[in-house]
């Protein structure tokens, strides 16, 4: 395997304890701040030394506590894109990119820099100092600098976080392009769910130093293994739950019974549903025997330019003391269709959209 990682390192608040193997596809590492994801990158890059374990990159052992192997960062050939890029402010873009190529002959070095600048689209900016580049340009120069050493692996720490929103999607596309052409394992650390989903092929969810989920990203988003993973992948609605029969559960916090796909033999202690999976059922659709449809009242709402989040109270009108049960996210076009219809509205928690958790 290109990436064999298994180590423990005790940190101030918890122990970072990870064990996973990865291939050449981009792996997104998702976790809240302080979950140890940056430390994971630092350990792989050789900037931190774990207490125990073994790390191999493309078959080369770079750390093995039992055999007292600890290859220092400068000999690991791991490309790192730091969160704020860490460009050398006193060197031009060209000199930054060429920093890792100083053992090459001048002509060859210049050719490589030119090729790298083209690859990350910073041609023409080579003579500028980092201070004269925009955030996106700095990010690309830093990427070219990391790629220059022909790294065994590429590690990106919050590569897009420092950028303005309007720049981010463009830079992200170029990053995607680079990742597609990069031949080797790439790890992208991020706390942004959408970024993780778009850039990673596989996903690793880290919470307090432990791997909470690891695998195919679609699978983790569709069937998060725990409440925590669901929450970290953006699920907003949770309720304690207990099974009533093999096809029915009671959602204790929502005060309703829900029909579910077969749960026989499974423990169900929590149920969840993503905000955009809540279906508003209009009156004329309600004629049939629709399962999991409940009356709801609007407690409050919060708008973004294109979508609206509705905080809903199930079964009874909201009072000032009870928090809303659910939040639903709908496009404003759809919202415009039922916003003026009288309360209660009706909402459907379709059995296929329900997430069931054993924890």
């Amino acid at each position, binding site marked *: 395997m290109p990436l064999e990682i298994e180590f423990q390192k005790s940190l101030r608040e918890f122990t970072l304890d990870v064990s996973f193997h990865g291939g050449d596809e981009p792996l997104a590492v998702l976790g809240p701040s302080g979950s140890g994801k940056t430390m994971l990158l630092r350990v792989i890059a050789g900037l931190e030394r774990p207490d125990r374990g073994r790390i191999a990159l493309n078959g080369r052992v770079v750390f093995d506590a039992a055999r007292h192997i600890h290859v220092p960062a*400068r000999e690991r050939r791991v490309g790192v894109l730091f969160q704020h890029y860490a460009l050398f*402010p006193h060197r031009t873009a060209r000199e930054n990119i060429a*920093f890792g190529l100083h053992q090459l002959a001048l002509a060859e070095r210049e050719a490589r820099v030119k090729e790298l600048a083209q690859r990350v689209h910073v041609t023409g900016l080579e003579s500028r100092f980092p201070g*004269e580049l925009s955030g996106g340009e700095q990010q690309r120069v830093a990427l070219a600098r990391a790629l*220059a050493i022909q790294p065994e692996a590429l590690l990106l720490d919050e590569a897009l976080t420092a950028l303005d929103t309007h720049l981010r999607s463009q830079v992200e596309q170029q990053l995607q392009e680079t990742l597609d052409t990069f031949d080797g394992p790439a790890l992208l650390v991020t706390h942004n769910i959408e970024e993780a989903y778009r850039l990673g092929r596989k996903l690793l969810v880290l919470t307090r130093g432990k791997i909470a989920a690891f695998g195919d990203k679609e699978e983790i988003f569709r069937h998060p293994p725990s409440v925590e993973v669901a929450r970290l992948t953006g699920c907003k609605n949770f309720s304690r739950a207990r099974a009533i029969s093999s096809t029915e559960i009671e959602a204790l916090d929502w005060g309703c019974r829900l029909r579910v796909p077969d749960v026989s033999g499974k423990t169900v202690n929590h149920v969840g549903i993503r905000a955009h999976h809540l279906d508003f059922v209009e009156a004329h659709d309600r004629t049939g025997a629709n399962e999991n449809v409940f009356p709801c009242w609007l407690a409050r709402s919060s708008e973004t330019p294109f979508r609206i989040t509705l905080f809903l109270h199930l079964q009874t009108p909201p009072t000032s003391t009870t928090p809303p049960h659910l939040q639903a996210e709908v496009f404003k076009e759809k919202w415009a269709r039922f916003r003026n219809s009288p309360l209660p509205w009706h909402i459907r928690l379709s059995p296929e959209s329900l997430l069931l958790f054993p924890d």
Partner: protein
Amino acid sequence: MDWSPLWISLATSLLATAITLVAGLTAAVWRENRTGPGVALADGILLLPLVLPPTVVGFLLLLLFGRNGPLGHLLMKFGAVVVFSWPATIVAAAVVAFPLMYLTARGALEQVDPHILEAARTLGASEWRVLREVALPLAWPGVLAGLVLSFARALGEFGATLMFAGDIPGRTETIPLAIYFAVESGEMRRAFIWCGIDLAVSFLLLTALYRWTKARTPWRARWMSQDAA
């Protein structure tokens, strides 16, 4: 008029500053990322010349380099006597100026973003290359401040020099000593002239140093102006 105090002062301060630069930087680099009781003790010793009165420093140097002192004894074997000689003025000035260089260099190195140094390491740079090509150039404005302070301190050094090097006209008499003895013997005019020369020398050297640094760090103004924007 005898110009020797000017040449002695200039040579002494420049050499002392050069020694301080190397020693101060070395100590600051050594001190970086080190902790423990030994380091705290070393820190105390390194900073001692800053808190001790110069006369005490001069006296200690006399003991150290004297005929029966450990260093003096060692140097005697090579036929060298430092006490009351021109090199003594350099030693006195360097010792007194050292803590200023060490402190400012340490501060300047600590100010360098550690991620930038780590980036250099991941790009295959040896620790020496990280220091020479990244840490020191970035710490340079701070190091320069230390250089200026050290030079000013060395140029103004009086107490330790008098104790350790004495006042030998044409050999150890620096400008501050010349002023002191001019005033003492009532030659006010001579004292005035030396004060004026001291002022001019300090001003010229500081200006030159400042210009040189600005020319050496063109990236800095742009980096700073971007931060301000």
